[in-house]
Each structure stands twice: as structure tokens, then as C-alpha cells.
């Protein structure tokens, strides 16, 4: 190892660091550390001029190791590694001290923050002395992509990639793609019909030569790494032969059993053999085992009798298929908040209190009432209240804003106005009309004669009798500073969007994280909004956070672009920090063999030593810590490096 010649660069990050940490003092301190040739501070180290300072010093002062004290390595480690590489130093001879996220942003006392920053810099300097040059590894990228979730985001991502001539596997757990968007009536603010813009895309997916559509299927296992993931997908038994079925629909007509339709959110019925909705893609029904008379009682088989092409197959079983892909786009969508726990709003307790999704079906001309807005008794409501922020912006449920409710509530007003003469009351906290054309839509609705009442509803009750309506809303009008009682016939609860109920399972499956609100966590909220902490896995649509259709589509296109960028490059760089066995020290005890979560360690029977397959090793270091002979080195996280860092941080 050549004599260390270290350059230390302390970033002000504007006032983000320099406002709390005395950067000059930290720089002076760094100057005095062993091996440090130069220490400087600068406004923004990550900027071009900042990077130039490092490059110039490397060349002019012959530096061979670099420490930057700035933000989290998650943000700029890659940036500064590249700077080192461009100036001729191996990128692994760079170390970062996180004096922003772990210091200036979390410490109030300036003096203590400065002390802490010094400790972090000292740790990085001591560590970098022991760092060794490593070669980044490149692995080939499998040109196939997996898209999980067939809502608008998944559909968009799949089409974008497939249109470039690369294969896409689109996996959807329900019998048809389309997602929530297929349930909507019109879309704000343009009021174009949801089905009219969605169904053409759905049929494109169904017939696309580069898309292999797997509906009624779920991802069961994901292994491998960026560029070459292996994915196991369970294709649930449909009990209908997909190759034979023509989608004529006779089976659905003949099936004698009706159950509540999931697609109609309980407002309509479907048969035990069904496609969720008439424009389903694929147009192949499934038999719902739990309600099919044959599966329950052993008799019926009406569908089988009438199927001309003999597509019904009661013997079908689940199939597990294994595919290989280079990138994965997770677009698993959202769940609509269930307002039942908000007892005072009366959902499921009082007639004519419905959720926004139920209203979407009610107003939809393809819905259970043919688009007629009617009360439970069949009559037309004379007044309707729309309660905003149900389950959103509420510390008891979800603190976040669901983004779309203000806008769809406005849309509802317009649709109600189109079809009835009902008085409409919007009970809102704040109107949030942030998108293109949204504020204009709000203005238009204000002029259409909708009543806007600013205030949170305390109760919906049927205990106050009135001629005007059977339900009464008790609320506070915060603009008039008075309590109001509002008799209405129908109440629509504008429910928020929440993470899918099994989001937790999905994070484990794909090894991604969730933010505090429960939605999937992107790598960086602004600059890396579709990548995740797991390389090669991207997120799109509402699974990452509540958003409207335009944003979901834009995000899906972005995720597709990320996947395509990987495919077009054909290879990806992966972490060089793997583990290696020193065969001379290895006693052949094989403790490490069983510990490795990736089965990357083989045993050489001839030499009686363990050997690590670096292509499979991900560098977790579990084996390093376990080796009783200290024969395994975790590259870039060697015991020497970590101990040096510990010593440095405790100065």
C-alpha cells in the first residue's frame, strides 16, 4: 500500500451544514489528522466547481485517497466515486462522512454538532487509509421485464417497454387487468370517460406480441439480483381452459348462482363463473371455487354443459411458472380506505351513506343502476352531501392528504348536476386543486351552483327528522364560525387512498421499503422517484403514494424508461464489496456454508476449503463475522476498516 495522501473536503451545503456545524473548524481539525495532505471547505461539494476542486487536488497534490464530509452516502457516494475515477483514483479509495443527515440536521447545539462532525470526519479519514482499490463488476441484463399489477400504471409501463420490442411479463392477481381505473365513471378535470381511454390500452396489452399477460396470478418468490432476477409466479386455477375459451359468455348466463361482485363493490351481483366486467382483458372467465355449486356440493356443472368448446376444466390446478427478467416494475396500486371504523359517519349502519367508489359505480352507465343516481328505495335524491378527507388528513387514520379526493368530489358534483336536480354540499377542510386545469375545474363547479362548506363533519345521523332529508349532517362551518345541521338524502364519503392491505408482504417479496405512510419508498423523493433501494426494482403508480391518473401514467413511463435504459445498455455495474476466503487460513469447518443466504459458498472437497462464488455473493458479511479463523474478508467492509472507523468516531 502506498503512503496515504488524503484530501478532505467539507461541504457547507449552503446553510444546511454550515448553519449548525462550524465547517472551518472541522476543516482545520481535518488538516491535522494523520495522512491528510489537504483539507478544504466549500459551499457545495457536489456542484461542478466543487468536483473540480477535488480533481485538481488529486492531480496537483498527488492525492490517493479522498474523504468528503457532506450528506448521506446514499445521495452522493456515487457522485464522488465517479469524481475519483475521472481523476485517476480507484472509486473505492473514497469515503464519505455524513455530517448532514446524521449531524447538522439532527443536532440543535452548534458546538456539539461541530464536535460530532469532527468525530465523523476523523472516522472517515482513519477508515479510508485501510480502504483498498476494488474493481466494479458488470453483469449482463436480461432484456425481459416483469411488471406487477395491471392497473393503469402497470398497463402503461408494460406497453411502453413492449412497444420498444422487449418482452414484458405482466402479472395481475385479479381475473382482469384494468385496476381501479376500470371502475371509474368519468375522469377529472376533462370529464372524458374512464373506460373510453382505458379499454383501448387494455386490449393493446391483451394482443401485444411482446406482452405475456398473466392474470389471476401472483408473484410468489423473487431471487437473483439486478439484471437477472428469477421470479416464481403462481397461476391460480381458473377452471377454464384459456386456449379453448372463446369468451362467448354463455357459461356466465347459465350459471345459477349469484354473489356480490367485487368490481361493483357490493352494489351489483356476478355469477360464480365470471369475468369482473364486460370489457375484461383477457375475456376469459374464472370459476370462484368458494361459491361454485359443483365445488361446494358436487353437482351443477351447468357451465360445462353449455360450453360449446369444452373449455371448462374442473380438474385444473394452480401452476407455478418460473421466469427470468432483468428488471421489475412494481405497480400494485392502492386500497380504498374503509370508513366503517368512523362510526359517527354511519357507513354500513345508515342507508344511503356510500363510499366514493360505490358512487363511481352508481353513476356509471355500465354500473348496477345503469347510471341512475338513486337512493336505496329507488327514488332520486333531492340533496347530497359529499364529505371530504374521510380517512385522510386525520391523525386517527392517515395523516397524509390522498391528493385525489378534492378533485373526484368536484367531479361527482358535476355528474350529479348532469343527472339530477339535487342540491349538492361539499364539506371540505381545504380545497386542493393542484394540477393542470384543476383550479379551473373548481371555478367552473363553483359557478354550477354547488355549495361549498368549509368544515369537518362531526356526525351523520338519522335521528333528526326533517322533511328535507332522512339524514342529517352535523358540522362546523369554520368560515361562518357556526355549527350547522344539514338535512340530506344521500351522503358520499370521499375516502382516501391507503396502501394495499398486503403491502407489507409485497415489500418483503421484492426487498423494498415503505415510507412512514405505508406506501413503497422511492430511492430519492425528488431525484430518483421510481427507483427503490433494491437495484433493478422500480415502483410506479399509487403503490408509491396517492396520485391521480396523469401522475400514475407519468411515473409508469418513467419506470419503463429506467428499465429500458438498463436493457439498452445491456449490462449493469454491481457492488464490488463481496467476500473472499483466504484459503490458507480456512480450516474447512464449513460454518459459513450454511450461513450464506444466497448459497454463494461452496466447499472444495479436494482442498477442504470453502470458496465464495463472487457472482452470487451480495456482500452482506454474515459469513465474515462468523468465521472462527478470520479467513473471510468482506471487501470494503474489512474488520480493519470498520475497527479503524470505530476508533475514529470515538476520538
Amino acid at each position: 500500500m502506498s503512503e496515504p495522501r488524503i484530501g478532505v473536503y467539507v461541504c457547507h451545503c449552503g446553510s444546511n451544514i454550515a448553519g449548525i456545524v462550524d465547517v472551518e473548524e472541522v476543516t482545520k481539525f481535518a488538516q491535522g489528522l494523520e495522512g491528510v495532505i489537504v483539507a478544504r471547505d466549500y459551499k457545495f461539494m457536489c456542484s461542478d466547481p466543487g468536483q473540480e476542486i477535488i480533481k485538481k487536488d488529486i492531480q496537483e497534490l498527488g492525492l490517493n485517497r479522498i474523504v468528503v464530509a457532506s450528506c448521506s452516502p446514499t445521495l452522493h457516494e456515487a457522485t464522488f466515486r465517479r469524481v475519483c475515477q475521472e481523476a485517476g483514483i480507484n472509486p473505492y479509495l473514497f469515503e464519505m462522512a455524513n455530517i448532514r443527515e446524521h449531524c447538522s440536521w439532527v443536532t440543535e447545539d452548534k458546538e456539539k454538532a461541530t464536535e460530532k462532525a469532527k468525530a465523523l470526519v476523523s472516522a472517515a479519514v482513519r477508515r479510508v487509509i485501510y480502504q483498498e482499490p476494488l474493481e466494479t463488476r458488470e453483469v449482463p441484463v436480461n432484456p425481459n421485464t416483469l411488471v406487477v399489477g395491471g392497473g393503469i400504471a402497470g398497463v402503461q409501463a408494460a406497453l411502453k417497454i413492449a412497444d420498444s420490442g422487449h418482452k414484458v411479463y405482466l402479472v395481475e392477481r385479479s381475473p382482469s387487468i384494468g385496476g381501479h381505473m376500470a371502475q371509474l365513471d368519468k375522469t377529472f378535470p376533462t370529464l372524458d370517460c374512464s373506460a373510453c381511454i382505458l379499454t383501448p390500452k387494455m386490449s393493446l396489452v391483451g394482443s401485444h406480441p411482446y406482452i405475456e399477460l398473466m392474470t389471476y396470478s401472483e408473484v410468489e418468490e423473487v431471487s437473483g439480483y439486478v439484471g437477472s432476477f428469477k421470479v416464481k409466479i403462481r397461476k391460480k386455477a381458473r377452471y377454464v381452459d384459456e386456449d379453448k375459451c372463446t369468451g362467448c359468455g354463455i357459461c356466465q348466463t347459465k350459471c345459477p348462482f349469484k354473489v356480490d361482485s367485487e368490481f361493483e363493490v357490493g352494489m351489483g351481483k356476478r355469477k360464480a363463473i365470471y369475468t369482473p366486467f364486460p370489457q375484461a382483458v383477457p375475456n376469459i372467465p374464472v370459476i370462484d371455487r368458494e361459491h361454485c355449486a359443483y365445488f361446494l356440493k358436487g353437482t351443477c356443472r351447468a357451465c360445462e354443459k353449455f360450453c360449446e368448446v369444452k373449455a371448462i376444466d374442473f380438474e385444473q390446478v394452480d401452476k407455478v411458472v418460473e421466469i427470468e427478467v432483468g428488471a421489475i416494475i412494481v405497480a400494485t396500486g392502492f386500497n380504498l380506505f374503509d370508513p366503517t371504523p368512523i362510526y359517527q359517519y354511519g357507513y354500513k349502519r345508515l342507508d344511503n351513506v356510500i363510499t366514493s367508489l360505490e358512487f363511481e359505480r352508481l353513476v356509471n352507465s355500465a354500473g348496477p343502476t345503469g347510471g341512475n343516481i338513486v337512493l336505496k328505495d329507488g327514488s332520486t335524491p333531492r340533496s347530497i352531501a359529499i364529505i371530504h378527507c374521510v380517512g385522510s388528513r386525520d391523525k386517527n387514520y392517515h395523516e397524509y392528504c390522498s391528493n385525489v379526493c378534492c378533485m373526484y368530489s368536484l367531479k361527482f358534483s358535476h355528474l350529479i348536476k348532469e343527472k339530477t336536480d339535487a342540491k349538492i354540499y361539499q364539506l371540505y377542510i381545504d380545497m386542493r386543486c393542484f394540477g393542470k386545469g384543476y383550479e379551473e375545474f373548481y371555478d367552473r363547479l363553483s359557478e354550477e351552483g354547488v355549495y361549498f362548506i368549509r368544515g369537518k363533519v362531526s356526525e351523520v345521523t338519522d335521528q333528526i327528522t326533517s322533511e328535507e332529508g332522512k339524514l342529517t349532517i352535523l358540522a362546523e362551518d369554520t368560515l361562518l364560525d357556526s355549527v350547522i345541521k344539514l338535512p340530506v338524502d344521500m351522503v358520499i364519503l370521499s375516502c382516501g387512498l391507503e396502501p394495499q392491505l398486503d403491502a407489507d408482504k409485497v415489500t418483503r417479496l421484492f426487498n423494498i421499503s415503505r415510507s412512514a405512510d405505508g406506501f413503497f419508498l422511492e430511492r430519492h423523493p425528488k431525484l430518483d422517484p421510481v427507483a427503490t433501494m433494491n437495484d433493478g426494482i422500480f415502483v410506479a403508480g399509487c403503490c408509491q403514494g396517492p396520485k391521480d391518473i396523469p401522475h400514475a401514467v407519468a411515473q409508469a413511463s418513467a419506470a419503463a424508461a429506467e428499465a429500458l435504459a438498463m436493457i439498452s445498455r445491456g449490462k449493469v455495474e454491481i457492488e464490488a464489496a463481496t467476500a473472499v476466503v483466504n484459503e490458507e487460513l480456512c480450516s474447512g469447518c464449513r460454518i459459513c456454508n450454511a450461513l450464506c443466504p444466497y448459497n454463494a459458498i461452496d466447499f472444495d472437497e479436494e482442498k477442504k476449503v470453502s470458496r465464495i462464488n463472487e457472482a452470487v455473493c451480495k456482500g452482506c458479511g454474515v459469513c465474515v463475522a462468523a468465521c472462527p479463523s478470520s479467513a473471510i474478508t468482506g471487501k470494503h467492509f474489512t474488520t480493519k476498516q470498520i475497527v479503524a472507523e470505530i476508533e475514529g468516531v470515538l476520538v
Partner: protein
Amino acid sequence: MNFEPKILGILCKWCSYAGADLCGTSRKKYPPNIRIVRVMCSGRVEPTFILKAFEKGADGVLICGCHPGDCHYAEGNYKTVRRFPLLKKMLSQLGIEDERVRLEWVSASEGERFASIVSEMTEQIRRLGPFSRNNGGGNG
């Protein structure tokens, strides 16, 4: 005398380090007594690290990893779970008080949890007093 404990934090890169980052991004304040070192996985933690820390002046060590089941490396933190009691046993034989070493799970979204763990542990160690490198283990 005002005793300011020194606490070493060893955090896994994927969940806990990211959680501490989030804590910063959300500007949640916690005592500056903790100094964080990053490892790839809590399963990388060797007893040497902890002993070295106490030798070099730490009054406490906080190890944080992904929640069980959430490990970036599938099951690295399960190894940590199995090793931790052994580590504790060894530390007690060396006369290092139980409260000085903690294992906590902090996910990438639990910035606030990280702050409260650090605050609580700092107070605990403050009450416990400085770690004496001569109390037990013979020559200390």
C-alpha cells in the same frame, strides 16, 4: 460534573442507516452523543467491534438492523438475533452492564423511532454513568 456519554451506533446500510437518514431529512432532533458507523448488514457485526468500542472510550453501543423478516439479505438479521444473546453473555462475563449494549430494529421509514431510541438510550447511559475500563475483566 456533566457527563456526556459516547455511544457507538452500528447500523445496517439498508434499513437502519436509511432510517437515520430519514430522521435527518425530517429534521427530528436527537442527542449528539451517538456516532454512527455503517455496515452492510447487522449480521456483519463481530464481537470485536463492541469490545473495541468500549476499549476506545464508548459508554454504550447501539446495533440497529432491519426488522425480522425485512432483511435486505433475506435472513442476515436472524443471525444477529441468534448471536446477540451470546454477545450479551460474554459482555456480562467481562463486567459490562447489560444496558450498555442494545439491539434494535429500525426500518428505513422509522426516522422518528430512531430518534426516540437514541434519546432514550442516551438518557439511560447518562444515568448509568461512564463506562469504567477497569471494572472487571481483570486488567480491563
